[in-house]
């Protein structure tokens, strides 16, 4: 094993990962083909650090007590999308303790919205569903919120189904940073937080969003959908039918596949 400090590497689940100066842990991991679960992270945007799915534990230590027993002292927990990689650090990701926390987060997201995968156009290519399968979510675990949310079908080409929003703000960031339109924002606090559209009526149809905008093609779940297109890709050929989300980190981020 090489000296991590000299060659700018760190250890992810005991596997040596090279990195470039300024890269975050998740950027370096994904570049090396190592998957860290995430939802709000996207390589084209500044880290957001809100979904916490990419949480890892850094530099846990094992000490020997006076009576000769080994005791593990957990390292600090950090969002790998906002934490710079540092030479020699030891990062734990796919360990039971962290995976359990991620599974809980996904379960909470699944009951907070109305995620009916069987009739969702994004099924098979949805990051949330892909992660749920990957983390072994077999049932909701928590009581469903059954939030009542209407769809916004006012735009001629794009439909918003708020039932599935996970508040990742990818559309907010894409619209502001790439499209320069500020079509989307989050409003409210706590469990009243929700996605809104920047128009006097509050309707998407009264914004200047275009179907070709980055914001219209970045949603990791089934909120922002292109109208009149549904279930065009047969079972077996959908994105995560081909390979589970964790087995193909080259496809790690939402892609422009609906236009």
């Amino acid at each position, binding site marked *: 094993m090489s000296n991590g400090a000299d060659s700018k590497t760190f250890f992810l689940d005991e596997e040596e990962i090279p990195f470039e100066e300024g890269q975050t842990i998740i950027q370096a991991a994904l570049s090396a083909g190592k998957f860290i679960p995430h939802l709000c992270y996207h390589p084209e945007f500044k880290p957001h650090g809100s979904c916490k799915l990419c949480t890892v534990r850094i530099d846990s230590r094992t000490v020997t007590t006076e009576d000769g027993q080994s005791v593990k002292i957990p390292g600090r927990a950090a969002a790998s999308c906002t934490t710079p990689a540092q030479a020699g650090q030891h990062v734990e990701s796919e360990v039971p303790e962290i995976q359990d926390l991620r599974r809980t987060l996904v379960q909470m997201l699944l009951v907070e919205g109305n995620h009916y995968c069987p*009739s969702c156009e994004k099924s098979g290519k949805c990051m949330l569903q892909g992660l749920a399968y990957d983390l072994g979510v077999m049932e909701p675990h928590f009581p469903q919120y059954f939030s009542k949310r209407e*769809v916004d*079908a*006012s735009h001629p080409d794009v439909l918003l189904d708020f039932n599935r929003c996970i508040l990742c703000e990818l559309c907010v960031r894409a619209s502001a940073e790439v499209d320069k339109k500020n079509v989307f924002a989050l409003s409210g606090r706590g469990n009243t937080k929700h996605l809104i559209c920047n128009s006097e009526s509050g309707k998407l149809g009264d914004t200047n969003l275009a179907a070709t905008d980055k914001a219209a093609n970045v949603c990791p779940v089934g909120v922002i959908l292109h*109208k*009149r297109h*549904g*279930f065009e*890709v*047969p079972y077996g050929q959908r994105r995560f039918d081909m390979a589970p989300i964790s087995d193909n980190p080259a496809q790690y981020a939402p892609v422009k596949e609906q236009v």
Partner: protein
Amino acid sequence: MKHQFELETAQNPEALKRIVIEPVSRVEGHGKVTILLDDKNKVHQVRLHIVEFRGFEKFIEGRPYWEVPVLVQRLCGICPVSHHLAASKAMDMIVNGGILTPTAEKVRRLMHYGQMLQSHALHFFHLSSPDLLFGFDSDVAKRNIVGVAAANPDVAKMGVLLRKFGQEVIRVTSGKRVHGTGSVPGGVNKSLTLEERDYLLKDADQMIAWSRDAVRIIKQLHKANPALYDSFGDVPSTLMSLVDEDGGLDFYHGALRARDKDGEVIFDQVSYQGYNSLLTEGVKPWSYMKFPFITTLGEEKGWYKVGPLARIQNCTRIPTPQAEAERVEFVAYGGARPMHGSLGFHWARMIEMLCAAETIKDLLLDPDIMGTELMAEGPRRGEGIGVIEAPRGTLFHHYRVDENDVVTYANLIVSTTNNNTAMNVAVRDVAKHYLTGHELTEGLLNHIEVAIRCFDPCLSCATHALGKMPLEVSLVNAEGVEIDRLTKDGEGRIGNGGA
């Protein structure tokens, strides 16, 4: 025609004893039968109740139209393909006026005939053959598919493998054995590859042979005991189904034809686009399931049967040769008039399964099934009606979609709903003939369930009468005197009866 209201409501229910068969076993979904009898076991009231509520018509509202064929099929786990395709046909009308490429139509047909095969095999072998092979009041411990497998392993194997083949046809055409996504508004999302075609084709002849054997089994049972098979649950009624433009049997598309109980044509080649003026959906206060009837004939005389017994006797031919030969024999057995004995459903159902097996082979040999033109375009409309012959009978889907692509209205008349009155009349007929004056035993009560099973009802699909059930609320004072009354009729109109 038997009077549909006979034995529906007893005059003095509080003075009668109540027998409940719950759940009705070996049917799809959950239902129960209540029977009211007097001290001498004379039957006064029999009702088939559906004890679950689905409500799909309501929660489809507000959803984007392209979700509907995939969403609405979740009504059912047995014949979801029917809902998938009926919804797709309705949405075809909306997205392109109902145009399909030859490949799209044939892939959908293949999916549908695969479903017809698997559903009919499931019903006959798994659900009904224990009654038919062992007797209605045989040992209840053996009266099931495990008992059939022990006593007649070849029959059980045939049933399992026929169903498996049908499920494979569905998987290849829709992506999954249950709840696939193959059919989309305006077409399909896949056709067959050569490998898929050959995979199914290699077993097609065996399925035809086994289907022929199944017809032989039920035919022999029928002819061996005509006294039972011809008269059990005999409910003469109107028969309604889709037929093709030549009057032939067609499960996927056609126009409506109805014959009266004597076989005379009441109407023919009526476009299903006008179904809502043709049919009225009646409601009763004791059921979530509606009671449709032919409007011009009225509620009392306009009820009808759908499904295999109606289809086989309504059509003038079957396009596949072996099933057609069986149809001719079936019709000849019935004589000058249609057969209405409920057990005739099984015979007709097996003829349909043979037709499905033959048609599957024909479609697999058609080069269009591997074509690449999957979608068609045409003018957009705001309303669509799709009708299909599901395994259990005629299935109506009706939607309106607004200019924003969102569903604003949905109405479903499910196959089993069409048979609601006929099923109730059949169980009353059986109760009257077999239960009256007898000490009730499990075997006797199973006669009631046998009558229901003939119709192969899918109870879970059939309950949508949200807000349509008539209600009456009375306010009674401490002396028992009614001081106010509020009523709601079948259209949701609130009235004040006033005491």
